């Protein structure tokens, strides 16, 4: 063990961190080296002075804000506030999102009226000469329909209303195949029956009717398909035809 203590040991001596053996050794060394002893004594004095000067600061007026119980309460309050504001934020986002979604839906519906494609198809093909199937025989029309639309019901006999089948045309849109069935009366007035799988905006399309220019569309859903009967808006038989179709299809 060295007789001359290290600098660190001198500090440890001041701070009383030496074991008794080393302390004795340091004391012996300092007794023999007054210069070092003076240094160490000065450090010790400084430390003492510092302690004395700062001991007054321990007796500050207590600050109730710092009391652990109070801090705990404050933390709890803050946590609750955070939760509350998180909830409010979520709610706001939810309301905004929902509202926005509904506006989107509404504007989509407004720009996509139900069965607009039926009216469109009628405009394009009602007067067409070229049909995929020309058939005056209702049974042939029914068979053709069954080929393309497995779950379709039975076509009613519309002759009671003066209409006979003219033919059909197979169409397609985003939802898959669609069919336009044409009927004509003795005076050459045509109505069409349109059917297809439900579209994304009208998965559960309500029944209804609307007028689109010169045309009247009456639409409904049954089973796997959406149907629309498109006739001239002035044709009074439209509603009766619609009822007859709705029963059997």
């Amino acid at each position: 063990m060295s007789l001359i203590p290290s600098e660190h040991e001198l500090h440890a001596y001041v701070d009383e961190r030496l074991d008794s053996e080393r302390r004795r050794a340091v004391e012996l060394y300092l007794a023999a080296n007054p210069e070092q002893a003076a240094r160490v004594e000065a450090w010790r004095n400084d430390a003492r002075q510092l302690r004395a000067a700062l001991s007054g600061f321990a007796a500050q007026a207590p600050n109730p804000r710092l009391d652990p119980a109070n801090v705990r309460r404050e933390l709890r309050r803050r946590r609750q506030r955070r939760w509350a504001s998180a909830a409010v934020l979520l709610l706001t986002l939810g309301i905004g999102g929902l509202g926005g979604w509904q506006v989107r839906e509404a504007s989509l519906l407004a720009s996509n009226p139900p069965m607009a494609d039926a009216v469109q198809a009628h405009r394009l093909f009602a007067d067409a000469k070229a049909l995929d199937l020309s058939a005056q025989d209702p049974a042939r029309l029914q068979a053709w329909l069954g080929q393309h639309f497995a779950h379709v019901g039975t076509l009613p006999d519309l002759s009671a209303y003066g209409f006979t089948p003219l033919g059909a045309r197979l169409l397609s849109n985003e939802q898959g195949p669609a069919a336009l069935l044409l009927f004509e009366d003795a005076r050459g007035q045509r109505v069409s029956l349109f059917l297809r799988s439900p579209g994304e905006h009208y998965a559960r399309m309500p029944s209804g009717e609307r007028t689109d220019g010169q045309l009247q569309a009456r639409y409904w859903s049954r089973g796997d398909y959406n149907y629309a009967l498109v006739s001239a808006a002035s044709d009074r038989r439209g509603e009766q035809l619609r009822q007859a179709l709705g029963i059997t299809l």
Partner: protein
Amino acid sequence: MNELDDEQLRQMLERLRRFALWLTREASSADDLVQATVERALSRRGQQREDASLRAWLFSILYRQFIDGKRRERRQARWLAWFGCSEEAGSNTEDIVVAQLGLAAFAQLPTEQRALLLLVSVEGLSYKEAALALDVPIGTVMSRLSRARAAMRELAEGATPPPALRRLK
């Protein structure tokens, strides 16, 4: 995992305030620092290291917060300088108090030396505890202690009898 009970904390409060006051040298920000320390201690009571005594742990939280705060301040000052506003230097602990208590030399020491002397000489932490509190190796504690005491001596001897403290710019 020991539940930190309020009474233990309460007993440490005045020591923490004293430590904070001599780090920040401003009474109000010192108490803010202590409050932040107590908050952190309460919300992280599970994180106390096994080998750290409660007081070393608390001092370490406080010191870390102080250092982080200083860093933030410096960043803010840089931003302010960038935008052309110069910030008024924060007022230090009243010069009069410092002079009266013969703490002139101590008050002029760099923060890290002040912190160490406070922990070792005033709070009576062991070197190991001080190392934990300041988050430095024990070797650094020893050499820093050596430097701090030498600096303190120099300042004290150069200024005997202690004149009214001049604010350091």
